């Protein structure tokens, strides 16, 4: 009896082993057919001084993905050695902007974030992307800010949505929900398709000014449709955060590869609720 029981256990463990080895979905790597993987690996003799380990380290520390900024803010970034949240938060401030942000404000901000156990989440309501775009408005080159918000739908699918366009020739932005789908990975790709897809609105019959709920975006859409407004290029991308009570901070990319680079805080302001609504 005992022998049968042990055999069943062995068969069961063997089955578990085979199940764990079996991949749930086939990976279609026909690409490597007939080629030894070894032949694709760089020959170690190629390791000339191009392997600059200092650069490698700086690149590793760089906050390249916006998600890494969130992780470091929340104290869960695996790319930094220090697990101390205070030093992780301090490392998020761009030293190139040290003249714009007072050290006392940084200390107070970090202290409050730690004491209040504040964390950032992509699903938070109070953060926005601001894309400063170069546009041609009635034959004149000028700038226009596009305000985008990250949205998670009830079915858990995600997207960036256009919530407003800010320029002297457009009505003020009103806080109404609008819907214009921008893929939820666009923030890590510098929103490179936004200009193209907004300019394409003129050819889309389904999307007219009634598609947008706010007067601001209705006017913006009409100008695009009439080709009185053409988006040319994205000049600057910033993310503005209002989740931390009494604070507003903004993040943009510092591209120079040095000890500290990538998505970093360049603006920090103590604010009240009225300031927050004004934004």
């Amino acid at each position, binding site marked *: 009896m005992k022998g049968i029981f042990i055999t069943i256990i062995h068969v069961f463990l063997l089955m578990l082993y085979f199940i764990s080895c079996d991949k749930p979905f086939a990976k279609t790597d026909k690409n490597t057919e007939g080629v030894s993987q070894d032949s694709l690996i*760089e020959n170690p003799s190629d390791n000339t001084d191009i*392997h600059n380990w200092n650069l490698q380290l700086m*690149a590793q520390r760089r906050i390249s*993905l916006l998600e890494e900024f969130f992780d470091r803010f929340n104290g869960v970034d695996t790319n930094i050695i220090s697990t101390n949240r205070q030093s992780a938060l301090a490392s998020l401030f761009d030293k190139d902007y040290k003249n714009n942000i007072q050290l006392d404000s940084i200390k107070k901000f970090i202290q409050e974030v730690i004491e209040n156990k504040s964390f950032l989440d992509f699903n938070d309501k109070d953060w926005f992307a601001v894309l400063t775009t170069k546009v041609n408005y009635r034959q004149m080159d000028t700038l226009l800010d596009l305000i985008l918000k990250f949205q998670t739908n009830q079915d858990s699918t995600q997207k960036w949505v256009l919530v407003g366009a800010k320029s002297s020739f457009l009505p003020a932005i009103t806080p109404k929900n609008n819907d214009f789908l921008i893929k939820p990975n666009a923030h890590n*790709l510098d929103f490179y398709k936004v200009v193209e897809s907004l300019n394409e609105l003129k050819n889309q019959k389904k999307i007219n000014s009634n598609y947008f709920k706010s007067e601001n975006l209705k006017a913006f859409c009409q100008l695009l449709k009439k080709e009185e407004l053409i988006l040319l290029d994205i000049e600057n991308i910033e993310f503005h955060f209002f989740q931390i009570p009494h604070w507003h901070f903004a993040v943009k*990319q510092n591209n120079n590869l040095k000890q500290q680079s990538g998505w970093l805080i360049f603006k920090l302001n103590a604010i009240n609720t009225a300031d927050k609504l004004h934004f």
Partner: protein
Amino acid sequence: MRIKISAAIFFLLSSFLLKAQPKLSASDLAEFKGSAEERIELFQDYVKNFFSKKGDNQQRSIWRKQAINLFDLDAKIEVSNKNGKKKKYTIPQYFDVISTRSSRYDFTVVHFLSTKVSNFRPVKKGNGEIYYVGSYTFIQRFCAKKSSENEKWDYCDHTEKKGEITLDKEELSTGKQWVVKLGDIVVTDTYD
């Protein structure tokens, strides 16, 4: 009767929720992220091989074909130089461009610094089906020597690139399967 109506409502609601919810679990998505990392690494290996002029014409043709298969059909790769000029190429064109670029020098090497891959995020298609998108970044260091006997590099630049990844169902010989494909690659900046 009331029980029957409640059961019907529960059934309809649960079937709606099941249909609307993303199809893949967190562990499935983590596995596909691994698959995406493998594809990115393979692509980078092909680029390294082209830049370092490895393989004969036949071998390079195979690598080129295999690299193309890693990408969406309409994917484009943006290239740039230190003057800030940017240009987009299809994947086959891109491999021609890097072959030409490397042929201008006696010795060229490309090295990829710090490739970081994001998690997949679910997106709804127009027909209600769900697919997933992700992204990755890397810094490409290109160095070249006019003569391999030169001690120092004659030219070096760094290009920060960002790429798109999609995870979608595709009809294969084995039926409908989730497949990871690389999409467009854009340049953020090029510097010394």
